[in-house]
């Protein structure tokens, strides 16, 4: 099996940006985007680990993967509708 990383449409580096924060930045990007677009959000906010998956589930988009790094996490999200 080969794993192909999806092509990122837009990367949002929200590390250290408490306000408006990583999730609002993601919602804003998804609102501007097209179905199938893939977004990378880089967040150092611990709350993102629950907030981002919760919104994606509610808004019915797709959380492709979460990658933990040193002090931050990368969320890969696909706009599904």
């Amino acid at each position, binding site marked *: 099996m080969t794993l192909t990383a999806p092509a990122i449409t837009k990367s*949002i580096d929200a590390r*250290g*940006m*408490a*306000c408006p924060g990583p999730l609002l*930045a993601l919602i*804003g990007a998804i609102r501007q985007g097209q179905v199938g677009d893939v977004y990378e959000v880089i967040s150092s906010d611990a709350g993102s680990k629950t907030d981002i998956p919760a919104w994606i589930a*509610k808004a019915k988009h797709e959380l492709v993967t979460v990658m933990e790094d040193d002090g931050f996490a990368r969320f890969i999200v696909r706009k599904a509708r």
Partner: protein
Amino acid sequence: MPARVVVLGGGVGGTLAANLLSKELGKEATVTVVDSTGMHLYQPGFLYVALDQANALWLARDERTLLRKQVELVVDQATKIDPGAQTVSLAHASTISYDYLVVATGSRIVREAVPGYGDTHDFYSLDGAQRLREELRRFTGGRILVGVAGIPYKCPPAPVEFVLMLDEYLRKRGIRDKSSVTLLSPLNRAFTIESASKLVQPIFDRQGVGLSTFFNVETVDAEQRTVTSLEGETAGYDLLVLVPPHRGAAVVEASGLGDAGGWIPTDRNTLQHTQHERIFALGDTTDLPISKSGSTAHFEAPVVASRIASFVRGTAPKNAYGGRVMCFLETGGGRATSLRFDYAHPPIPPKPSRLWHWAKWIFNRAYWVTVPQGRVG
């Protein structure tokens, strides 16, 4: 020959950057501000106008009076930036050339981006705030919804401040028991900063202010008086107040210098355009996922001015933007808290108190003689 520095936009960031550049570089540079109206608006005041706490007169000043006399002011609409030729086209005058360009054109309100927006109320322009004030004066009770119809938007705490101050306003008018007030939050809590959200949630509970979470307003049906979220929920209202969608300036979009929302791709530390090193951006104009607020522009302007001065002199730039933002959050009842943070330090808001409310009031009043001139840092 002196370096030519052109600043587009005479808001907080553009005015302060121009004044600091003129002061620092003196005869080493000419500094020109291009502003489409020549009037400087103090936008944080819109909230107070809408809620009948302030007169609109103190919110506008002639931009010329805020600029050092050595700074040239051109009142005209910038229509196109050509980064190759290093020129800016103007609607009514000839093209001007620059060696360094500061784009401080801010946000543009695009109410038409929301289907059904129509006569929906907001406090994101002076006209809008005055219209909402009149509507509230006529209001005798009913369901009030306050929501967010686009991201990013200016002043992230504004919807929270508005509902809490609206609660107080309705109580003073004696119609609070005939009204419901609900905040439609884009997030799963009242406010984006969790620590601040924890401070305001008990106030929502105590005052009976409702909260609907993960409700990002997508469409309005003015006939049925309903609003629908992109998450798929619908709510009914008698009075709807929305934060309208924002985009970057038309000149940025027309020049192909912005992203999908018209925001300039900007380095988070140097505040330079990521593709054009002679173009700087600050305030709302950038694509940085940081607060679109006067405070952000205020703290970015000295970095932009310092870095341009270094380039003009051929020295290594020393200052970098560290993400500093400071703002107040009104919590109703004459109380407020404050939010201070940067890239390395998350905010730790103090308990809401009268002290911060008065600090905000004094800041609002003293703005005209402090911020544009760089007297507070």
